[in-house]
């Protein structure tokens, strides 16, 4: 199909940061109150815009949401389908629990290969639980694809993808030929909310489940066994407590300087 695109969007099911998040005794994260990572709404929006600009599904464009996670992670896919993804793929297997970035990227790379020829893989800039930003770069390395990461804009022109990447003191334009791995920041767009029509439409959309066996990955390559990092301890940081609060009575600026002097900060 001419310039139609097959896009895989990586979405992660993560503990909701609006609540207190906990690391349990086994040094694993409590995932009970989880949602579609808010930073993964941006790559989904970017994919939908690329698809719509090319005539959407009718014109042969595909937006596939892919998640790796436990049974509940299907909820992240449902939300992605309501927002507008065409279909969902859920990579799930007990052996995946506890995967670090190396194991996650290995499994996601295998799942993406399993999906056949893909033009773009679009991820978020970071997961809100892992917060490493390692997965997109490791995926690019494993898939042998160029990476266009931390994009604050993305355009696809024929078979060339072009992003804007803002660094300290400079901004770069970076280009690569498709297929490519892209990650996008929260500067790139305003993600849409699911509307009533989208919620109804999502009920008819398919979620495909993939196991490790189906993508040809051994249990020993993922999860705690396949991870290359080990967490020795995880302690809650003593919560910051409120200190002195004063109300300005015309001299608060001077009191602020007194405080800084007492703390030897000036």
């Amino acid at each position, binding site marked *: 199909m001419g310039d139609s695109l097959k896009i895989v969007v990586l979405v992660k099911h993560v503990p909701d940061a609006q609540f207190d998040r906990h*690391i349990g005794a086994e040094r694993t994260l409590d995932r009970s109150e989880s949602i579609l990572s808010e930073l993964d709404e941006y790559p989904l929006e970017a994919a939908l815009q690329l698809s719509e600009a090319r005539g959407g599904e009718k014109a042969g464009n595909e937006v596939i949401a892919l998640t790796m996670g436990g049974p509940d992670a299907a909820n992240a896919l449902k939300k992605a389908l309501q927002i507008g993804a065409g279909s969902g793929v859920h990579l799930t297997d007990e052996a995946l629990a506890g995967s670090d970035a190396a194991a996650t990227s290995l499994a996601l790379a295998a799942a993406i290969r399993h999906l056949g020829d893909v033009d773009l893989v679009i991820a978020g800039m970071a997961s809100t639980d892992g917060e490493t930003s*390692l997965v997109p770069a490791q995926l690019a390395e494993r898939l042998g694809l160029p*990476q266009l990461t931390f994009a604050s804009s993305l355009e696809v022109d024929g078979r060339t993808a072009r992003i804007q990447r803002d660094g300290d003191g400079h901004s770069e*334009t*970076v280009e690569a030929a498709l297929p490519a791995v892209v990650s996008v920041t*929260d*500067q790139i767009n305003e993600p849409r909310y699911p509307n009533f029509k989208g919620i109804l439409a999502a009920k008819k959309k398919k979620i495909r489940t993939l196991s490790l066996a189906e993508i040809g990955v051994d249990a020993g390559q993922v999860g705690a066994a396949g991870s290359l990092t*080990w967490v020795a301890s995880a302690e*809650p940081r003593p919560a910051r407590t409120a200190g002195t609060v004063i109300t300005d009575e015309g001299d608060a600026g001077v009191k602020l300087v007194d405080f800084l002097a007492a703390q030897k900060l000036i």
Partner: protein
Amino acid sequence: MTAETVLVVLDAPAETFRKGQLELLAAGRILGSVSAAVTGPVSEAARAQLAEHGAAAVYTPDGADLGEYLVGPTAAWLADVVATAGGVRAVVLENSPAGKEAAARLAVRLGAGVITDVVAIEADGTAHKSVLAGSYEVRARATTGVAVLTVKPNSVEATPANAPGAAEATPVRVPEGAFATAARVTGRTEKPVSGRPELTEARVVVAGGRGTDGDFGPIEELADALGGAVGASRAAADAGWVSHDLQIGQTGKTVSPQLYISAGISGAIQQKAGMQTAKVIVAVNSDPESPVFEIADFGIVGDLFDVLPQATAEIKRRRA
């Protein structure tokens, strides 16, 4: 080479290395004897710095300009440097987006574990970091022969080595094929420089939010009086009042200065994620219910346009 080499990866400096880069060499020395892999040409002055900070060898890319591409070729070259150096126990990189991504790809090539956002290193390779927006302290280790670590600014003091290194210049060819699937930098615009300290390296940060209503004057003047950097909330950066480079928080920079002064910022969870590991937090906000007061060591309920200029004048008066 000794069996305990630590490779420290540094961006080529315009003239000499920044303090934040020298900190990486000090971090590396906790784990073994250091060598530097510099991604471009090294001036004589910069090489002298590397010697002073203990680098035994200085590896530079031969035959290609890595700066024209996004991290893939750098990772491929670094994998060859690790092989050339021999006996590498750890690779230490900057904790910037590009540093983390080079680390990510290099680790895949080496089959190594990566730990990002490191704030302290123990001699046995255990790294400390905070996770979940600064709410937990984690100690973690790579279980592989080589560990790849990205270390945050201000984690280690940039002291010179006890014994200087030879800083022997060692060019290493950029491997054939490294560019086959690389993303190419086709344009670059420089942004104006402020002359203030780099945000993530600054000892003092004064940050403004929507409450400034677009006037960052009082923020900048207090920052300058304190020799600090200027930061901002996303609301202020999105409004275009300051460059997005200054945004602090979940999707901006994470800072851990000695002193963080928050002015006209409500203290949303995504903002806290970037600043709650600061040593001392001061908040100025006109709303006493503002959540920022829950984490401030010293809070002032007041108008930032009154409080900040008065504080700036008072600092100048006491110094005079």
